């Protein structure tokens, strides 16, 4: 589903991602672990084609993202849902309007949008707050709205950047459980985090990054490592 081959990305003199090679299969759930500045966010931005690699290839669903432009890029973005670290909710739109946005951009309208939005808000347990504005919600609730917006249009891939950051353990667990639930529907899910507690609690694949390189790629709680390989670092 997602393949990175010797991918490198620099910002000025800083090499944010350095020769990363890995593969994430369809329907897989993977954590991207690492401290701040390890390269997790840049890796997600490369997959979502917000950034393009300086070297190497990023393949999503078999297509080279560097070669995708215009309508192709729009189609690629519609196959993904992204939960941003800062949520990036529209401040002047209600919860329901924020969540409906991916459906609106697909030309959907009327009752089908309302029912889809209702269903996903029920799923994240925010149905009673559909008329609120983001500023009227807690941090955890804003993350849930961002997740709802990311999954409302049934994407094939879900990318989450630090979805549990600054949340209490209880709220973090709630969010991760929600992501696992979404993954159970077959959505390929990649979650960038440095929340060791959450990662250790689950028996999932963990790609550990440091200084832009993949340091380890293991299945927590399992002796056998996943098939992906480290790139040159």
């Amino acid at each position, binding site marked *: 589903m997602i393949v990175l081959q010797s991918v490198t990305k620099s910002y000025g003199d800083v090499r944010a991602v350095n020769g990363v090679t890995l593969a994430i299969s369809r329907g897989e759930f993977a954590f991207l672990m690492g401290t701040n500045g390890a390269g997790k966010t840049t890796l997600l931005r490369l997959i*979502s084609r*917000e950034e393009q690699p300086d070297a190497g290839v990023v393949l999503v669903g078999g297509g080279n993202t560097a070669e995708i432009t215009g*309508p192709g890029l*729009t*189609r690629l*973005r*519609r196959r993904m849902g*992204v939960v941003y670290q800062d949520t*990036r909710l*529209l401040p*002047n*739109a209600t919860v329901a309007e924020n969540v409906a*946005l*991916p459906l*609106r*951009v*697909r*030309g*959907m*309208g*009327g009752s089908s949008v309302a029912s889809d939005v209702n269903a996903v808000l029920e799923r994240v347990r925010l149905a009673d707050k559909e008329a609120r504005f983001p500023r009227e919600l807690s941090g955890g609730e804003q993350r849930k709205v961002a997740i709802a*917006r990311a999954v409302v*249009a049934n994407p094939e891939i879900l990318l989450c950047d630090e979805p549990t950051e600054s949340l209490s353990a209880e709220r973090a667990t709630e969010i991760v459980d929600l992501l696992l639930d979404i993954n159970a529907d077959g959505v390929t899910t990649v979650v960038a985090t440095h929340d060791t507690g959450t990662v250790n609690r689950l028996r999932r694949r963990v790609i550990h990054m440091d200084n832009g390189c993949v340091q380890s790629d293991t299945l927590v709680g399992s002796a056998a490592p996943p098939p992906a390989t480290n790139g040159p670092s």
Partner: protein
Amino acid sequence: MARLHVARYLLGSALTGLWRNRTMTGGAIVTTAIMLITLAGFLAINDTLNQMVTALGRKSNLIAYVRDEARPTQVMAIIDDLRTRPGVGEVQFVSKEDALAIFESRFVDQRDILDVLQSNPLPASVELRLNDPSVVPDLAQELQTMTTVFDDVVVPLDVVEEVIGISNLARVAGSVIIIALTGVTLFVIVNTIRIAVFARRQEIEIMKLVGATDWFVRGPFVAEGAIIGGVGAGIAAIALVVLYAQAAPVVTRIVSFLPVSTDTDFVRNLAVFTLLVGLIVGSLGSYFSVRRYLSV
């Protein structure tokens, strides 16, 4: 069906966007209205000034006194030729008898002077009323060369030159100010819209990231720009019509010696022009302001 949903969404989104960003919207509308009132007001003033200068030019006269011995056929041929010249309005032949009659009517208390004279001493003349004062110097010179026909050519050249100078200055200054004011108006309106779009650049980025096409993102902003420009221009147009209706009679009264036209056609056309400028600048300003944030 999808297109209908999109169209409804775009318009709804534009109206919602305007309302939720009402401080910015209000500022943009007021700025647009003020700039367009200034521009349209100056256009109206410039038009009135031009009419006044043109009217002043029409007051320019030229009188050529005909020699007594000049042949009438020759004089009439010259008059016919003068009537075909550009810039020449009326050409009137005043015979010796007419001149005497005019003298008598104007100077009733000095009729004794004429009784002393044995014959009519007043010459016949050709009087020209000119539409364009700039033709006066050349025309006067031409008539002065016809020494067998005309005895003298009287023309208030200093006044004519002054009128030509004022007319040219008014036109050049008017054009320069209108060009500069139009540039400033467009600059201010477009920048006001750019600031409004800049404040919502994150919204544009998010829409692109969730898979919106460029036109889906642009649509509401272009509609918002058109509404801001249209409403601002509408306010300007109404203000213009009201101000013109109030000011026109006053101007006409003050410069009653000049035939200044205060017709409603002009102000109506100006109001329509203002509306069109508002709509076009508003939509194009938004279109180009959004474009720079679409490359996400």
